């Protein structure tokens, strides 16, 4: 560690932590959509390039230009950190959208009345949380201040993603009950309609018979 001063060591620690968060998000994002999202790959590749520039200086075959070695190391470590930070936000934004879609798809054929009856937690807790998740986790492209990475904020957003993952699993667990209730409701509705129809026919027939009897 003699190559790096305390400030540099702290930046490296932050990069390593953030990279770990980003890797978790990357694995989950790939599970969610079965595809790899390209923008964070670009960011990680750029981060790696800046880290390699640092190691090149450490091992004596870099080019610091007009900067001193430590100025050069710091500026490249900060650049690497910014790239990993952006990659993390790209993933957070990506995951929140596809989590939302996965939930939409699974609940597409479930009536609100079914949800309210069989799964009251959905409207009480889960739905407000899902709506909040979409609004709270920012679209990083709209954020202007990306130069000052805030690890606590990232951890808070990751916690939201984790909660949505649990909510999604709970929805999946409830789906058989929701579908069963809905199928039963539909059967009951058909029965009721059939009974109404048959009753209507009987009333008409009786009415016709009475009318014929009276006026014949």
């Amino acid at each position: 560690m003699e190559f790096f001063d305390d400030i540099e060591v702290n930046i490296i620690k932050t990069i390593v932590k953030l990279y770990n968060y980003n890797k978790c998000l990357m694995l989950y994002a790939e599970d969610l959509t079965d595809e790899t999202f390209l923008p964070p790959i670009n960011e990680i590749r750029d981060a790696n390039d800046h880290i390699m520039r640092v190691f090149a200086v450490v091992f004596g075959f870099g080019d610091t230009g007009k900067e001193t070695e430590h100025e050069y190391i710091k500026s490249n470590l900060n650049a690497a950190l910014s790239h990993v930070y952006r990659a993390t936000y790209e993933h957070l934004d990506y995951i929140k959208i596809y989590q939302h879609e996965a939930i939409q798809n699974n609940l597409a054929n479930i009536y609100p009345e079914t949800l309210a009856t069989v799964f009251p937690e959905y409207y009480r807790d889960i739905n407000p949380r899902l709506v909040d998740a979409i609004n709270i986790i920012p679209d990083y492209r709209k954020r202007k201040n990306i130069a000052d990475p805030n690890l606590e904020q990232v951890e808070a957003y990751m916690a939201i993603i984790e909660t949505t993952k649990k909510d999604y699993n709970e929805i999946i667990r409830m789906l058989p009950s929701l579908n069963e209730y809905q199928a039963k409701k539909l059967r009951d509705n058909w029965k009721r309609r059939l009974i109404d129809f048959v009753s209507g026919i009987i009333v008409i027939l009786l009415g016709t018979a009475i009318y014929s009897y009276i006026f014949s």
Partner: protein
Amino acid sequence: MGVRKEIWNKDLREIRVNKEATRHHAQKYRMGSVRLATGRIRTKEEFEQDKKRILSIKLP
């Protein structure tokens, strides 16, 4: 050849992908991630389109 110092401070170009071409040539290139080699990639443009569509549909 040795290490070329002048290369260090050049920035890399952004990766751009043509998914159809990648899928078409998948059999020829088996290096690296199978996911990437077979065109299972989502680009920024595709994501932005999906995002608009998904956010326009409300949850029940």
